[in-house]
């Protein structure tokens, strides 16, 4: 399918509640930022999912190359000491 006459693609990020982070939830086509935001609202927040929406032009996202996955992420596999799970927490600290 030709993409020449299509509106650009946008990635949609929705925050469900104040204090939480924006999560990627999908994408859509729109002519400009205003339309993208409006459509994101209509498509992705119909069931009370949202309190805030971000839209980002898909072609503005810089992504890692899937073929570099081994090189980039496997070296972390045997470095469990990077997880802060070896500390004894004082009793007064809850929910860590």
């Amino acid at each position, binding site marked *: 399918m030709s993409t020449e006459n299509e509106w650009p693609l946008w990635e949609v990020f929705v925050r469900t509640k104040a204090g939480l982070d924006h999560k990627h939830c999908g994408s*859509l*086509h*729109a*002519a400009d930022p*205003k*339309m993208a935001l*409006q*459509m994101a609202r*209509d*498509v992705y927040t*119909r069931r009370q999912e949202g309190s805030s929406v971000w839209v980002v032009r898909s072609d503005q996202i810089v992504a890692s190359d899937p073929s570099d996955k081994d090189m980039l992420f496997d070296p972390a596999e045997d470095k469990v000491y990077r997880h802060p799970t070896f500390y004894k927490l004082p009793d007064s600290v809850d929910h860590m």
Partner: protein
Amino acid sequence: MISSIKIPAAPELSYLLRLADTCLISGQRLGEWCGHGPILEEDIALSNMALDLIGQSRALLTLAGQRSGESFDEDQLAFLRDEIDYRNPTLAELPRGDFAFTILRNLVLSTWLKLMWERLRDSSDAELAAIAGKALKEARYHQQHAADWAVRLGDGTDESHRRCEAALAQVWLYIPELFEDDAVDAAATAAGLGPAWSQLQEPWLAEIGEVLGEAKLAVPPAPTFRSSGKRGLHSEHMGYLLAEMQYLQRAYPGGAW
């Protein structure tokens, strides 16, 4: 088949029904876009707005039922009246037309509804005021959505401009009905129920004029034609709309999900 209910002739009830039916019939028309939108996202947007409007009409019809002196519920009022007992202005019932027509009608009606809800928040009827508070948020979005599209299409290509112009000319014929008062308005104003419809005209013209200016669309001349849907005298389109809308409740009385 199930027989129709009859609506008592009380001006305050008529006032509520005019508003409820404006929402109900606009919602029904807008819902016709479901599966026919120009793009998927817009299809969902129009259906969302249709559901907002039907939600508003449900609240208003329930209230009208309570205030009617009869024990009508929202479904009876929505589905079991004869055409003459529906009180929406004619504009709401016109066929959905092309996308330009739908957008311009939405612009006109959502602006009108927004101004109406703003004023109804001060209604002497606490329940009506509460309904207005909720509906206002929805109407503000409807207005913004329609205004965005009106500007895009009015100030768009030759074809989109031409279609908007034609749609606006048609819509404009039905505008006077939105601002003409009668005994219903007088009773509602006297009781503090809500504003006379004429009170919305000035702010409505200001807001619409701004959008049309940005959309490069000229305000059409004032028409001499007068529509009369809010007095129960509808266009030829209304019967077909009601036949489709009422079919299930007439064929399966009391049918529910």
